[in-house]
Each structure stands twice: as structure tokens, then as C-alpha cells.
């Protein structure tokens, strides 16, 4: 019910706001795909630092194939996902030997390697200048150059992607992923082929990152390696940390909230990184579970809150 209401509102609003807002909302949809797919990988405990790079792989795939092979938009977006999934599976193979912080830093290394290939290999990636003149997307004769039209295209991709990931999150496969996160050795001894399932999660996550990448490429019309640098990755991490990664809804909360904060803080341009850095630190120290970890608290009766508050007060007294 709530979902339908939200969708209805999303269908109406582009006609009632400025075009820059419509573009912001389009970016928001892409961010949602990115954040939810990142969290899908983290369900196995594999926190990587290269998801943005995989978004880039999708973007480059869409830009190159869209430009040179003339593949239409509707086919190209999922195809970019498949290309990214393939690259993800290849990169995951050596990374399987690492986990935890080792995985994190290894994924960063492999991500940087991919990024440097874009910089270094002028043909076909275009070097620092990237790829320009990505053909304008068209869908059933409808020009998606119009921001409102593109808004709806991205919304559809977002809704479908999120729905699919939600189905996966509620499946037995996702349970196996979560089991690997809690205790990979136990999962393995219960018959879960940990290597295969980690690769599966990584590949599926990369597939959706690739879709997000293709949507970005068509939106911008030109891409270069800077679109997928470490700062973008940090913002992605901030979304997921602040929303929380334990439930499906955490990253959605994070993206939504921070997009709003980001828009409201436009005038603070220069101070913005400090603000987000500060928020990240505060959350990691005081609310490591993210905002979603507060949700169960909302369901508690007020009396229990009072009791907890009393207990918390006693911890403040010295000795």
C-alpha cells in the first residue's frame, strides 16, 4: 500500500517541479539502484570499495556499445548489466582468497586498476577525456532527451531493479549469503559452497551497478574516469552506513535522507564534505547500525523508553 502511494506520488511530481529538480530525482533513482545493489553484496560480509568502478564499467559498456554498435537503449541497459556482471565475476575470482578488511582493500586495488585502464587506454576508452557524444536514448520512438521522459525511464528501471533485488533478498539464496556473513565456516560445513555463493552475490550486485552505470551514461551524454572516482565511492558508503545494511530498507533510507540533506545544503557548497564526513564519523561511533537500527525502537511502548533512559542516566554518573 505504502509502495503504491509512493509510486503514485513519483508519477505526479515531475509535472509540478522545475527541471533541475526532475534531474535530481533521476539521479536519485540511479543512486537507489546503486545503493541497494551495493548492500546486496555486503550481505555476504564482503564490503568492497569498488562498486562505483563497476558502475563505471556499465557506463563505459553502454557508451561504447551504444555509440559504435548502435544497440537501442532498452536492450543496452540490461546488456551493460551483463557486461558488468561478467567483469565482476572475473575480478571476484582472485579476490575470493581475501575477506574482511583484506577484501575491502583488494577490491580497492582492482578497482583502481580498472580506472587506470580507462585513463591509460585511449582507444576505445578515450583516456582522461572519456567518451563524448553518447547517442541520445530513444524508446519506442520517444525521445528520452526530455528530462521528464528520462525521469520515467529511470523510474521504471529503478522499480524493476529494486523489486528483483527485494525478491532475491527474501529468498533462500540471500539467507545463504547472510549465513556466510555470520559464520562462513559453519555455512560451508552445512553444505553452502561459500566461494560460489560469494561470487554469485558479487556478480548479481555488479549486474545492477552496471544498469545504474548505463543510466548515468545516457543521462550525462559523456563520461570520463572522474565520474567514478573515490569520492563518489565514499558517498555510496555513507548512504549505506547511515541507512544501515542489515535490512533491505536501510540503504533506501540512507539514499533518500542524504539526497534531501544534499539538496538542502546547496548553499553550504564548500562545507558539504565536512558535514558529510562529520555525519559519517558520528554514525560509526554512536549509531553503527544506521538509522534502520532505530526502527524497532519505534515499536517499543513509551514506558520502556523511559526505563532505558533512566538506565542510560545511571551510566553517566562517575564511578
Amino acid at each position: 500500500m505504502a509502495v503504491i502511494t509512493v509510486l503514485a506520488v513519483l508519477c505526479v511530481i515531475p509535472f509540478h517541479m522545475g527541471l533541475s529538480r526532475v534531474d535530481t530525482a533521476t539521479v536519485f533513482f540511479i543512486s537507489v539502484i546503486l545503493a541497494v545493489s551495493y548492500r546486496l553484496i555486503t550481505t555476504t560480509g564482503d564490503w568492497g570499495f569498488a562498486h562505483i568502478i563497476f558502475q563505471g564499467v556499465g557506463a563505459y559498456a553502454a557508451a561504447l556499445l551504444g555509440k559504435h554498435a548502435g544497440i537501442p537503449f532498452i536492450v543496452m541497459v540490461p546488456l551493460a548489466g551483463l557486461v558488468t556482471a561478467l567483469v565482476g565475476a572475473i575480478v571476484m575470482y582472485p579476490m575470493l582468497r581475501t575477506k574482511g578488511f583484506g577484501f575491502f582493500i583488494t577490491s580497492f586495488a582492482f578497482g583502481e586498476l580498472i580506472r587506470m585502464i580507462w585513463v591509460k587506454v585511449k582507444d576505445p576508452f578515450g583516456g582522461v577525456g572519456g567518451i563524448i557524444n553518447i547517442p541520445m536514448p530513444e524508446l519506442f520512438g520517444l525521445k528520452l532527451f526530455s528530462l521528464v521522459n528520462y525521469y520515467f525511464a529511470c523510474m521504471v528501471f529503478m522499480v524493476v531493479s529494486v523489486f528483483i533485488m527485494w525478491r532475491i533478498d527474501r529468498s533462500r539464496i540471500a539467507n545463504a549469503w547472510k549465513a556466510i556473513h555470520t559464520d562462513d565456516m559453519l555455512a560451508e560445513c552445512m553444505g553452502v559452497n561459500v566461494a560460489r555463493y560469494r561470487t554469485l552475490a558479487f556478480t548479481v550486485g555488479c549486474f545492477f551497478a552496471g544498469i545504474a552505470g548505463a543510466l548515468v551514461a545516457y543521462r550525462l551524454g559523456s563520461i570520463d574516469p572522474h565520474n567514478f572516482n573515490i569520492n563518489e565511492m565514499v558517498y555510496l558508503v555513507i548512504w549505506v552506513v547511515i541507512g544501515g545494511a542489515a535490512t533491505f530498507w536501510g540503504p533506501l533510507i540512507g539514499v533518500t535522507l542524504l539526497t534531501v540533506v544534499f539538496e538542502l545544503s546547496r548553499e553550504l557548497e564548500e562545507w558539504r564534505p565536512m558535514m558529510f564526513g562529520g555525519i559519517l564519523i558520528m554514525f560509526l561511533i554512536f549509531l553503527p547500525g544506521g538509522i534502520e537500527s532505530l526502527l524497532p525502537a519505534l515499536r517499543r511502548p513509551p514506558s520502556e523508553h523511559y526505563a532505558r533512559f533512566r538506565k542510560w542516566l545511571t551510566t553517566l554518573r562517575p564511578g
Partner: protein
Amino acid sequence: MDLDTFVQTLLNSIQTSSVYALVAVGLAMAFGVMKMANFAHGEFYMIGAYVLYQVYQLWGLNFWIGVVVAIPVVALLGVATERVIFRNTGANILAGFMATVGLGFVLQVAALQIWGHGLMKRIDTPYMGAAEIGDAHVGWQRLIIIPCAIAMLIALRWFLYNVKLGKALRACAQDPETASLQGIKVRNMTMLAMAIAGASAGLAGALMAPVAAITPYMGHHIVIIAFIVIVVGGTASVGGAVVAAIILGFIHTFVTTLVDSTTAAMVGVGIMALTLVVRPQGLLGRETP
């Protein structure tokens, strides 16, 4: 490559290795003692450079006073980071790392607001002129860092092996629980490690200030190199970090000269990726400081 270019590149390599060693050794200290992965280490380096800019360029004091002031200022920053961030993120390395990514942002904006933005800061070079060997020449200012780095590393080694406190620090890195049973306060040692990490990053930043482009984002590049160095050298090993710094400094400089800087960066990251996959404990294994 003719002889002059070779000598020139050799000198550059030594200088680059010195910077890498100075910066990486601090990161390795912090990681070795309490598994604190500090991404803001590059910003420590940046703050060191700005402190020198303030003392030397703006206040007009002696260059070396600037260097001497930068060390304790950044060391204090290290201690504060331990107390505010790592103490609270505890055993979760990843959370500590991400929080220091946030800290990096905070420090960048702080530098921007304190020292203004726009163009990079120019500093009058205190030591003009260059050392000339054949056709090769390297500015004296660049060469200063070599003896300073060697002196700092010797001092650090002397501290770790000859001073009671330094030995306690090594004991903590090797077996914190048993160290606590001997009466060593592990928390204090963690703070000490972060202070040393800050001090060496601050020193490197101050020394490099006249030859580097001072911007709030100058630490970004250096921290990635420092992580490559400690991963290749073995994350818990200070000795390994020094060896890896020298190797990578040479590779980086030579590849940059022979090919270009992007390829050099690729080779560096490639070596790191290879190390992580093939030999996760690093070149020098599990040796601790």
C-alpha cells in the same frame, strides 16, 4: 636511457623512496599495534605542509622552526584521532577506516577554510640551487628530505629497540593481552603509536611543502601510496614498510621516467593487488616492529 638521465632518475628515486618511507612507516606503526587503518593519514601529511606554510611563509620564521612545529601539531592530531575515532570503533577495522575517510573530508574542508582556497600555495624555497652530477641536477630542497628521513627512521628504530617505552610498544604489537599482564596499559601504547604516526606524517608534509603543490587534497595521492607500501611490506611490519617504500619508490620513479605516471601508478596498484592475492601477509611476512 643515457647515463645522465639514469643518474637523475636514481637521485629522484632515492628522494621519492624517502618520502614514501617517512609517510608509510607511521601508517604501519598504527596498523601494527592496534589494527588502526587510518585513511586520514594523507590529510595528516597535508596538515604538516600547511603548518609549515603558516610558520615559514606567513609568519616569516625560520624554515626549520616550521618543521619542528609541524611535528607535535600533527602528532596531537594523531592522538586525538585515536581518542575520538579508533577508541570507539574498536575491533572493527573497517568501521575505523571509514570513519577516518570521513575525518579526511573534515580536515580537507578545515584546511580550505583556514588557509583559503583557490590556487595552490606557493612557498619561497629556503634552499635555492641544485646538486649537479654531470647533466643531472636535483634541487637541494628536494635532497633535504633524504637525510631527514634517514634520521627519523634511525631515531624511531632507536626508540623501539633501546627505550623501555618503545619496547613496551613492540610488546603490545606482538601480544596485547600478555603485555597487559606485565602492567603495560595497551590504550596508552595505542595513543603513542598514533602520535608517532602523526609525527612522521607531519614531518614529511613539512619537508615536502616547498616542493609540493600545497592544496587541501594533496594527501589523497600519498595515502594511497602509503597503503600500497604497507600492504606490500606486510601490514604489521615497520621494517617491511621501509623496504617496500624503497622498492616502490624506485619502481615508481623509473616507470614514470621511462613510460608515464599513469603506468607507474598502475604498476604500483598492480603490485599491491598481486601481493594481497598471492601473499596476503606481505613481503616480510608477519614480522612485527
